[in-house]
């Protein structure tokens, strides 16, 4: 195998790739899901305080 720099940084790069790519998607997905649930609750005219703990 060739082209590799320091072998020790490999895992760090891979971990960074995974974290950097997945975290924003997870966060955005989480916010979107929470909003979706809030919106549904809202539409059903449930109590407005119901979803408060999520904030």
């Amino acid at each position, binding site marked *: 195998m060739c082209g590799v720099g*320091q072998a*020790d*940084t490999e*895992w*760090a*790069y891979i*971990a*960074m790739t995974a*974290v*950097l790519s997945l*975290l*924003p998607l997870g*966060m*955005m997905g989480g*916010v979107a899901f929470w*909003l979706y649930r*809030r*919106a549904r609750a*809202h539409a059903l005219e449930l109590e407005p305080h119901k979803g*408060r703990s999520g*904030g």
Partner: protein
Amino acid sequence: MSTAATLQAQREAVRRPVVPSAVLGTLIFVVSETMFFVGMISAFTISKAGALPGTWPVPGQPMLPAASTALNTAALMLSGVLLLVGQRLWAKQHAQAKFVVLAAWALGLAFVALQGREWAALLSQGLTMGSSRLGAFFYLIVGTHALHAVAALVFLGLALVQLFRGTLKGGLFFGAQTFWYFVVVLWPVIYARVYF
């Protein structure tokens, strides 16, 4: 002018949002901020992993005081918990709420002060931004966190003043709280990654 009045009424009718705009705006801001910190922390991780054997911890440079920082960490965590309690009490319009929030704020201030003392000690031992990679990353990450902590304390302080005057509105309190929780939750991650 009656058209203006109807418009206003209509807007009120339209804007019955799922979540208050302030909440949503702050939330999105926090997501971006998280990515900002994650960028720095992952840069640090890579840099640390790429260090040649024997160069980490940096020879001749002081070790980060992980043990004494545990105290700061505890102060910050407690502050976060107290603020959560304060929020609950405030929501129930409990009279004690303001004192709990004040305690949370004071603990936050203590955290910043203790961090400042730690920085002074490290600087006097020769750890500066230019002295080594550890120093550079330490002051960058912890410094950015400290700036956020100070900003959050300012907002929380404003909310606190209004709380004591009895004029506090939900928007400011919520924004300041969210920001403070962000600072609190972020710290253990930084502590675990940078100090050890």
